[in-house]
């Protein structure tokens, strides 16, 4: 059996979860990018044949446990996100960076809307469109992190 370095995927998820609970100054909490969403989109675009909705669902469940959200919140949101990025990965790969950035914004926005829906169900009213900020910050983070991740995944020959 040849090595496929899948551990790199797990490691990236663990780092994303760490960043997801990292303490931030109070006013910044709204702007925390969704690192797990970033990862899910990245891995689906890189290897759509083996990473899919199930992977996103598990990552989401782990995030729920770690952040203490209602179990299933992130799982549902990330699964929806994964579904849409699986549908469109061929186009996403062909986009230029600006288009990619915009598309990531839309995808994460969809994820945030699902998460926000659960929040409303739990009776936590969200002031206005604040919940969409992470979509913007995640999109801005995309061109900063993804080339590096892509490079690492290529070097390690993650399959």
């Amino acid at each position: 059996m040849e090595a496929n370095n899948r551990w790199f995927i797990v490691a990236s998820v663990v780092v994303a979860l760490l960043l997801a609970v990292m303490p931030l100054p109070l006013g910044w909490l709204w702007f925390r990018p969704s690192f797990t969403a970033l990862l899910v989109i990245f891995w689906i675009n890189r290897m759509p044949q083996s990473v899919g909705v199930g992977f996103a669902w598990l990552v989401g469940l782990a995030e729920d446990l770690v952040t203490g959200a209602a179990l299933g919140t992130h799982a549902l949101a990330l699964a929806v996100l994964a579904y849409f990025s699986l549908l469109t990965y061929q186009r996403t790969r062909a986009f230029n960076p600006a288009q990619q950035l915009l598309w990531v914004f839309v995808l994460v926005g969809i994820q945030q809307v699902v998460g926000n829906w659960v929040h409303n169900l739990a009776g936590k009213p969200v002031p206005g469109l604040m919940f969409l900020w992470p979509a913007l910050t995640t999109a801005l983070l995309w061109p900063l992190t993804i080339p590096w991740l892509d490079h690492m995944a290529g070097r390690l020959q993650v399959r």
Partner: protein
Amino acid sequence: MLGLAAAALIVINLYTDWLQPLRERAAALVTPFYWLTDAPGRVTDWAGDQLRSRDELLEENSRLKRQVLLLEQRSQSLAAVKAENTQLKELMNSAEMLDERVLVSQVIGVSPDPLEHVLVIDKGRDDGVVPGTPIMDAAGLLGQVIEAGGSSSRVLLITDASHALPVQVLRNSVRAVAEGTGDLYRLKLRHLANTSDIREGDLLLSSGLGGRFPAGYPVGDVVSVIRDPGRPFAEAEVQPRGRMNRSRFVLAVLSGEEQSVGSE
């Protein structure tokens, strides 16, 4: 399929507490995350301790000694008052006052969700912390434990929008319910009778009526009272005494019995 499973999980989680044992089991896996993200803070704390000059330490030491002396003197007079109080209560046949055991613990994390005010502390069931355990800091009440894992627990602050606690005014024992607002520096007393005697500057104590919080701990100060004749009730705004987002060390008040945490 997975979507359905997630939706089912969400509903179960929001409307029942069947998954609570699972979460508490998982806390053992989750604690390292908070512990790790807290590490930079601990390093700076440690460096701050190590890099202090001798003069500063000496000065701090003498300051603390003076403080200890003062506090000891105060606790001596307290002991006498307490004994007297117990005696009087016995005379009146009222319930015995229990001495609470207090446990010092450290805040290792904050909930990443901006909509909820939840802290993670480094003490759990192994140390006797159970759901319902009141948490306070040196200045006042902070909140209560909502989830206790083996060695960490999650604390819901009294300023969380879903939290409410029974309080009374120190000056005249008027009772009220202090609700969290989702703002770290503000509690609200809603549905006060227009005639109730509450003024700016009143200190609110926990009244112990809910059976959850021990009676007599400071909660906050009334900063403004709104009496509008057009409205059926008066409202008061309260500034909590506890330093919600600044305390690094908190106290867990252990009472021994476990209480279930219902939604309030």
